[in-house]
């Protein structure tokens, strides 16, 4: 490796511009937090973090000019700017923005380390964004850990309650366990190919040397990543962590780190191991079926709303993985679109749940949600809207997400997978509708009233509107997002993949 600083182009800095903006924002928030007197209000720090995130979103849009350049990578081939990375940057910055706005209005007033909370969310966003543009496994690993360590701390933010710390320790232990597997997979890939650059690995995989080591490497990396996206059978941490962590944190960590981890999954399977598609397609097929079925069956018997949504998110990981059964790069497109749809409805529903249950989960059960539509019609309506989207009824993002995912799998010939997926969608409607019915029922006269809450704040109202708008746009006019996803998928596809799919190759179509 030739270390020559002169080879760092000025455009290299531009390639990590969103990350730089986010890092500066996070450091500023942390420093100002330390400088403020202990009793001062930290609310403005949240606005600062939100504005910084909005700038990061804009700067990732500005990166579109980089696509004109002949070379796509910077920093010695470790960071890539492509339509794919920009798609995920915009998505993740959008989720983080919504999560920050929700936190602004729902965090308890005093003594809760608010400043650190905002800073941690922004630092986590740095890792998630970097994860989607990294094309070298060392950078991938660092980005994964930046994002994970921030979320470990956030998960345990209610550190005085038994459930809060229990969520944090479970998330931390199982997350680190998964990282160990991923890292061992990286070591095997390095051992088999002598490189950690994803495109170079793909080229060596294609030559057919060291196949045994490479298969082991793929398996270990998949275990690590599937843990992070909470797909069955690696999902056991999800319900406990989502139940114990504060709801505004769950809004973030059920969406943004998962989106980043799915981006990593796409990069690993399509970027590094494209010629092993006959191997990983059936593997992901099984994981998809398991995730859907286990998630939905377990969700059916939940009484706690957050636990039910946790199992539902496992099922959604399954619907998403179904897309990977598609031919060639069609799976990437469908998966990207599903991630966007899933993220916008899930971040929204956890924001609503935060407002209804309260930060400390005073009303955690489905029966506690009875009559929400009568007490606070707006919240009830928005909650029902997101539930409808999660079911996958037309005119919502959830419908098109499932539609593209299943039709892609159908195109790949995975008819049984699609049938199981459709059956599961029907099953899932049962528990979503149970919550809808509970919300729409007339409240009992002597039922415990919702804890006294202020009227919905400006920030959280804006967050809800963003999430509703995103879900609606994805459901009514999915064209633009789909176009971007297709473009990203096209640019991600390495050349070896086209050879693999060319006529006359031994790969079954």
């Amino acid at each position, binding site marked *: *490796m030739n270390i020559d600083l002169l080879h760092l182009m000025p455009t290299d800095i531009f390639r990590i511009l969103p990350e730089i903006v986010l890092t500066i924002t996070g450091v500023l928030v942390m420093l100002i937090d330390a400088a403020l007197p202990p009793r001062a209000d930290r609310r403005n720090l949240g606005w600062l973090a939100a504005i910084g995130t909005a700038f990061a979103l804009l700067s990732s849009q500005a990166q579109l000019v980089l696509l004109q350049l002949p070379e796509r990578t910077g920093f010695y081939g470790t960071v890539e700017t492509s339509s794919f990375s920009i798609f995920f940057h915009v998505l993740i910055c959008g989720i983080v923005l919504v999560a920050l706005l929700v936190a602004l209005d729902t965090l308890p007033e005093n003594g809760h380390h608010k400043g650190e909370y905002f800073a941690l969310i922004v630092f986590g966003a740095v890792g998630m964004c970097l994860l989607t543009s990294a094309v070298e496994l060392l950078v991938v690993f660092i980005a994964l*850990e930046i994002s994970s360590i921030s979320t470990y701390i956030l998960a345990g933010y209610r550190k005085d309650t038994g459930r809060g710390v229990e969520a944090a320790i479970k998330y931390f232990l199982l997350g680190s366990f998964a*990282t160990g597997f991923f890292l061992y997979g990286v*070591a095997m890939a390095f051992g088999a190919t002598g*490189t950690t650059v994803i495109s170079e690995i793909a080229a060596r995989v294609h030559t057919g040397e060291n196949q045994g080591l490479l298969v082991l490497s793929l398996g270990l990396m998949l275990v690590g990543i599937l843990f992070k996206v909470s797909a069955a059978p690696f999902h056991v941490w999800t319900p406990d962590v989502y139940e114990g962590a504060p709801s505004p944190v769950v809004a973030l960590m059920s969406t943004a780190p998962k989106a980043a981890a799915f981006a990593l999954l796409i990069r690993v399977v399509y970027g590094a191991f494209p010629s092993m598609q006959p191997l990983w397609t059936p593997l992901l097929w099984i994981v998809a079926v398991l995730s859907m079925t286990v998630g939905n069956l377990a969700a059916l018997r939940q009484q706690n709303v957050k636990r039910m949504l946790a199992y539902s998110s496992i099922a959604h990981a399954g619907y998403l993985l179904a897309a990977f059964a598609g031919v060639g790069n069609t799976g990437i497109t469908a998966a990207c679109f599903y991630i966007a749809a899933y993220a916008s409805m899930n971040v929204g529903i956890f924001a609503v749940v935060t407002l209804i249950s309260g930060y400390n989960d005073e009303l955690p059960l489905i029966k506690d949600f009875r009559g929400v539509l009568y007490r606070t019609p707006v919240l009830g309506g928005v909650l029902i809207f997101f539930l409808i989207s999660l079911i996958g009824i037309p005119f919502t993002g959830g419908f098109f997400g499932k539609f593209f995912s299943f039709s892609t799998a159908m195109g790949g010939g995975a008819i049984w997978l699609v049938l199981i997926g459709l059956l599961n969608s029907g099953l899932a409607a049962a528990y979503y509708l149970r919550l809808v019915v509970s919300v729409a029922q007339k409240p009992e006269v002597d039922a415990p009233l919702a804890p006294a809450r202020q009227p919905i704040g400006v920030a959280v109202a804006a967050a809800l509107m963003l999430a509703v708008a995103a879900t609606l746009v994805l459901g009514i006019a999915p064209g633009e997002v789909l176009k971007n996803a297709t473009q990203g998928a096209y640019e991600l596809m390495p050349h070896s993949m086209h050879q693999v799919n060319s006529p006359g190759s031994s790969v079954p179509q």
Partner: protein
Amino acid sequence: MIPISWYLLLSAALFCMGVTGFLIKRNLITVFMSIELMLNAVNLSFVAFAHQWNPVKGQIFVFFVMMVAAAEAAVGLAIIIAVFRARATLAVDQIDLMKL
């Protein structure tokens, strides 16, 4: 010279010990130590492969893994202290407020 496969076997054995320890140990600190053992097994693999391929690349990876493991340990031990404060126990079996 000792062939590279010996190092890899040792590394695999250490990794398996880490996984086993993670699954069967009943104390949070020991479980955490098992994770560290897994990471260090990976480091040994990297050094061995670095010797085979490209000395700089694999060794740099090891430095970063050590650094990240240190950061993770800081957060992990802090969480373990928080668990002890809230629950006055470190036994995995007793940290079971939330169940299926």
